């Protein structure tokens, strides 16, 4: 279905589970990589039990799992059986890239750590995704992205000054670090093609997140300032640099519009659109400095002025007047958004269990090798036969033996 992708020739063995690791290979799949996800049919990927669910519980019902594994093939193996490991070794021979996300040290128990992989295949590129990296005293602490959000300081940067740290209401680091992981993999592929050398990539979610906390670390080091949550202010140090800069109510229940005013022209346009011409001559609001100094009362006044407007109409008027503004979209709003639809963000595909659904495309488009949804997310074990026989070259008899042995698994079988 897809046009040729830039990574069409790249094979990825994905041994990772839950979210951060799997999304690294989703990103590679968008550009054409063939990704085989290996999972256990007994020790079930936590993602398979995570909502949203398509019509009740069930091993293939999770929309969350479908998001984490869009575009992949799915094989179930028992790595604790010698013949299961043998199949993994064949997949390593087939692969350019191996992605794993076990607690550090786990891969070594199967002799699948990087040193073993490299001995088998020097050009292999291995990405290990973990909470806090492969080494160090906290390396083996178990947990999820939610805890990294707290530890990295991200939670402390989100919320109201008079309220608790909140963070994003999801395991946010899991969904940001894949950008860094996929970037490192492609850079390593380029290096491999030029030199024949593979390498091991150690992605600590904690360390990636510390890189997206802006100036927090430098500000503490040079100014002694501990940056904490500040509502929606756009602060430089302790000083607002834009005002109004906030999120304001519009007509309806829990409907909001984000508005950022950086200069006088945008301010004047805002006053015009909100029909508050008198604000323009108010000395407390006339200059950016004055607005920043009075941004608290200004936020209250703006909120009063926006509350009677329809959010989308107000956004369109403000944007037409040159003011950065956007409605806060919920999930329903995303599906209806004209710009996302213009870009073909939602791609209809057929799920093996729940039928037609809208998969989603990646926002970095390319003119010659566009990202594409290669295939819908897989059902559990759906590609056992295809991958072992067509990709790895096992005969039908050998395949049946592996199933009988328990090396190749099916869900619900004993």
């Amino acid at each position: 279905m897809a046009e040729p992708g830039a990574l069409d020739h790249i094979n990825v063995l994905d041994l990772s589970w839950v979210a951060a690791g799997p999304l690294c290979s989703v990103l590679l799949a968008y550009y054409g990589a063939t990704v085989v996800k290996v999972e256990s049919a007994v020790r079930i990927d936590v993602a398979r039990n995570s909502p949203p669910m398509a019509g009740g519980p069930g091993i293939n019902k999770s929309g969350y799992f479908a998001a984490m594994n869009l575009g992949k093939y799915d094989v179930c193996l028992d790595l604790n059986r010698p013949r299961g490991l043998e199949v993994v070794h064949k997949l390593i021979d087939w692969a350019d890239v191996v992605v794993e996300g076990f607690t550090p040290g786990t891969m070594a128990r199967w002799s699948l750590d990087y040193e073993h992989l490299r001995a088998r295949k020097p050009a292999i590129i291995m990405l290990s995704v973990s909470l806090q990296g492969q080494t160090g005293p906290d390396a083996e602490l178990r947990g999820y992205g939610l805890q990294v959000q707290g530890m990295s300081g991200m939670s402390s940067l989100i919320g109201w000054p008079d309220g608790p740290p909140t963070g994003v209401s999801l395991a946010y680091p899991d969904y940001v670090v894949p950008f860094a992981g996929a970037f490192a993999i492609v850079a390593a592929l380029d290096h491999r093609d030029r030199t024949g050398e593979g390498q091991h990539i150690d992605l600590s979610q904690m360390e990636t997140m510390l890189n997206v906390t802006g100036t927090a670390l430098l500000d503490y080091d040079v100014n002694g300032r501990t940056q904490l949550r500040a509502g929606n202010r756009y602060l430089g140090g302790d000083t607002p640099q834009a005002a109004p800069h906030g999120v304001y109510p519009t007509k309806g229940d829990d409907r909001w519009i984000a508005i950022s005013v950086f200069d006088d022209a945008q301010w004047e346009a805002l006053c015009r659109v909100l029909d508050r011409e008198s604000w323009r001559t108010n000395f407390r609001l006339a200059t950016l400095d004055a607005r920043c100094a009075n941004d608290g009362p200004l936020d209250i006044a703006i909120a009063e002025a926006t509350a009677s407007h329809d959010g989308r109409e107000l956004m369109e008027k403000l944007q037409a007047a040159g003011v950065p503004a956007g409605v806060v979209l919920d999930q329903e709003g995303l599906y209806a958004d004209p710009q996302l639809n213009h870009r073909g963000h939602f791609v209809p595909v057929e799920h093996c269990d729940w039928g037609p659904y809208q998969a989603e495309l990646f926002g970095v488009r390319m003119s010659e090798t566009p990202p594409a949804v290669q295939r819908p997310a897989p059902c559990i074990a759906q590609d056992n036969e295809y991958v072992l026989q067509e990709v790895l070259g096992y005969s039908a008899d050998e395949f049946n033996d592996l199933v009988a042995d328990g090396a190749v698994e099916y869900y619900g079988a004993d």
Partner: protein
Amino acid sequence: MSLMTDTPAALAPYRVLDLTGEIGQYAGRMLAEMGADVIKIEPPDGDPVRALGPFVKDEAGPERSLVWFVLNASKRGITLSLEHAAGRELFRKLIANADLVVESFPAGALHALGLDYEDFRKDHPKLVWASITGFGQDGPYADYAWSDLVGLALGGLLNLQGEPGRPPTRARASQAYYHASMASAFGATVALYHARRTGRGQRIDASMQEIVTFTLAGPGGITGFWPLMNMNITRSGEGINLGFMISRTIYPCQDGHVAVSTLFGPHFPTLIDLMKRDDAAGFLEEEKWRTATRFSPLPGQWQCSQDEASACEAQFAAWLVLHTKAEMMSMAHEHELMIFPVQTVPENLSSEHLRARNFFQKIEHKELGATITYPGPPVLLSGTPWRIRDRAPMLGEHNADVYGALGVSDSELASLRAEGAI
């Protein structure tokens, strides 16, 4: 991680011209620290990011912006006016020796200056051109003005940030700009790789709004709640909202806060024992709670209701205030509790773990007579280490180097400067 300069770098063969604003500058830094020669091109009066605080010692100045430092480290820097005919001529020469251009002008702005990718590509078919904008090159929002806040709003993430009943809140660090930059650095590297293999460059059209949607639990992890469950998930303050359940994840302890993914993980029975030790388990002493879960019950478990779960959370919260973050961290080590402290910068700076990994790096800022501590690599690569090469460039710092390499003489440089072209 060493600062040795003799290690190979994965993107060493590539030269990048970086004409981005705040939305895209971290992309160039990632490419530079992976080894590319990234030349940041600024207008002669300086990039607007230089005016953003915080500043060194809180004194404003174009060479004192910490935002400029974190977004532009490891790049070289030149000045160039694209408004100026002589400037555009220099730009064309620079492109002839570049592999990638990254820019974030509003859609159509470069076309108005007669600078079109399609023209450049005729003479330079391998050239990759990445445009990072708020919403993309065409469509109903193509001309919309953007900010980080607006990108978060229209990308759907802002709806999940902050306290219920109050307006959603952004992070005090521009997350949508980071998303746009990181995703574009990835995409640009895919395109560079493709260009080297096939000789064919291409145009990249990155949309901040669309990229932000990926951070809603990937392609469909959150958006899917609408079509699959007819539900909209919103922010829940100190918790996560999974539609059928709200689970508290951030709790106060004696000296701050801790983060928990869920009470009802494999650690729950151990937690109850620890609470008993302090005589603080309350109703949780009852045997049945040891096998409670909030999720679909596995054999031997039972599923408790939202009210029961909230009661458990309250009991846990009452125990937690007896303990400090450090105590919780050592319990996490000893008992495999999935409970970690919520940290701020000074705590992370003294983290033994990060120190053992040599994470923090001191970068010299000679002009300030200081070294400044930066976060180290976001990823460690064994063969081609990520490397912070240098502090961000000063205004026009590499004009002589870069224009000299194009064959522009010192006297020509002087007159270009006088005309305002550089």
